């Protein structure tokens, strides 16, 4: 397993800020789309191994996950993850009260794909703007599975590390915790680290 990059305080701050900008934009888009106030914040950012990710996500918990592969200045499998039951609550609140439970379950996949796409695009866009570097991005893919199966499906090797970002979504008096995860190989991680350094150098 690769060891996580040791980011300086400034580098970590910058990365945090990039994601804060991203989810802020996503919240604005979502709010406009569903005409409700939605807040998104990034309280915490860390690097995890696959094992740690499993633990963090609760080994057997069913997850609702939207992923988009990105290639460019660095490559990663970007993901937005919510516990499945919470994702149902999000969709329910966004669509309003007049919807039956059956239809809600049917709409969950499509709605979550779109919400995930908005959040990921905003974050990738923020990375892209901050690093002045465009990414090739795939269309979103929706998966519902346990953490173990999720990793399996993304065919990650043991060397992979995960840039793991806890996000908090607040809508109509509920606070729901979800996660952003960028699954990267060691090489991509060091590329990311370098870009952060360069960007800081330009700024200072």
């Amino acid at each position, binding site marked *: 397993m690769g060891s996580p990059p040791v980011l300086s305080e400034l580098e970590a701050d910058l990365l945090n800020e990039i994601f804060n900008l991203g989810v802020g934009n996503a919240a604005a888009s979502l709010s406009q789309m*569903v005409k409700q106030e939605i807040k998104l914040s990034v309280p915490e950012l860390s690097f995890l191994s696959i094992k740690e990710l499993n633990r963090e996500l609760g080994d057997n918990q069913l997850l609702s996950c939207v992923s988009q592969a990105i290639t460019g200045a660095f490559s990663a499998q970007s993901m937005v993850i919510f516990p499945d039951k919470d994702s149902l609550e999000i969709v329910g609140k966004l*669509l309003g009260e007049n919807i039956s439970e059956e239809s809600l379950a*049917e709409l969950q996949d*499509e*709605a979550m794909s779109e919400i995930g796409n908005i959040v990921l695009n905003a974050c990738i866009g923020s990375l892209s703007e901050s690093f002045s570097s465009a990414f090739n991005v795939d269309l979103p893919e929706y998966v519902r599975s346990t953490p173990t199966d999720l990793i399996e499906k993304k065919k990650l090797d043991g060397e992979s590390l995960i840039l793991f970002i806890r996000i908090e979504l607040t809508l109509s008096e509920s606070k729901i915790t979800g996660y952003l995860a960028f699954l990267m190989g060691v090489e991509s991680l060091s590329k990311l680290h370098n870009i952060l350094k360069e960007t800081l150098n330009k700024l200072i």
Partner: protein
Amino acid sequence: MPDLNPLLFQKICLDLDTGILALDNNYKLTFFNKWIADRLVFDTENILNRNIFDVFPEIKNTRLESSINDAIKMGLPAIVSNIFNRSPFPLFKDKDSNDKIFQNINIIPIKQDNETYVIVQINDVSASIQREKALEEQARKRKKIETELRTTLEKLKHASAIKSDFLASMSHEIRTPMNGIVGLSQLLKKTHLNSTQEKYLNTIDSSVNLLLTVINDILDFSKLESGKLLLHKSDFNFNNIVSHILEILDPEIKQKNLEVSVEIDTELNSQYIGDENRLKQIFINLVSNAIKFTANGNIGIKVQLLKQNTNHSHIKVTISDNGIGIEESVIPSLFEKFTQADSSTTRQYGGTGLGLAICKNLIVLMGGEIGVDSTVGKGSNFWFEIELEKGTDSSSENAGNNQNTKISEQVFSGSILLVDDVMVNRLVAKSMLEELGFDVITAENGQEAVDLACSQSFKLILMDCQMPVMDGFDATRKIREMEDQVHIPIIALTALAMKGDDKKCYNAGMDGYITKPYKTEDLIAGIQEWL
């Protein structure tokens, strides 16, 4: 797709069953396929090379606009589902239609020679949305039907409650005149009659008994149905039950010249706890059915101990006959109300068809099981199984002997106050009581009774409940208030025979309860304890 000739791409896309349009990085519409042209209501001739937001002003300020922006500026692909915006593009089912189609849209940026193009793919999802809507509608209808059913059920419950009330008042209205008939025919028997008169009187008697059974069956059944019938547990003995019911049914058995064999396991010769009267009722029902449907031959009564532990015994009772038997196909409905094995036999054999339904309900109430095995032409075995708690074994034989004492031979004395507003009822009761040896003083309402109770002493008061001036409940309360040390037994003598009526009497301060119509034996049984 760097290697694909743009013309070839256009040719491929032209006839696809999905909408394709392409934009260059200046937001200019560079291509749209036939699918889109077919669904636009305006002229498509001049829209090429125009800004997409000019061609489709309705997508401004929507997520579609920002997604197209993100795709062109940053190469970000997007999906725009119908969930949050049903129909972003003004596309219609057909040229003359007002129905916009529901769209799922993919926005795919393509980089070529440092330029970004955007392909917008539009899928028509109207059909699946309509299917979902139809399902929703179905669910809504189902809920509506559920609500309607619930309302109907409430109405039915209400109707059933009205039925019960009606039966209660019917019960009272029927019992009062019946009391006159039963009592007076009994008294008439003791006068000098010629043989024809005696024959007529016996017929009146048996008709009245039949009518009473029918009324009691209907009342029992309505109580069972509404869950209002309660079991009254006491110690009893199977030998006594069987000999008692055989005594009651003796005339019918003799009339048909039937043989009855009784077989009771010797282990069952002890006391059990249960509702003796209801068990008798079940026995009488089953045995009289056997008598009714057997022209000549045998009837067997068998009581078996199947298993037992320290406190409980599992008992099986079988009533067998070699009568007409029952078709297998009607057996399942046999224990339903108003059912007889063959409706055409109704005339031949008579009956309300409630007997077996009552038996079944009683057995179920006792936690048991009832059934029948039968062969047409050979006969039937009706059986029931119940688990009974063992009773305290006070010499059961003595209990039996007591019951067999001929009550009508007993002689009484002392004075009794008889309170009833109906003249016939007073006449019946007074004659019966005088016959037994009592002195009888009568009162016509509660007030008279209270006055008499103040001025004279009585061994016992027989009190009707519903009376003008002052009813029996108030009169009882008044008498109880006045009496100091001597407690006069007050027994209700009433046609109120529904559940809870007895409680009302006890609450008012009465000691016992006799329902009309009654025979001399019933009267004695009801007052004996208090003398």
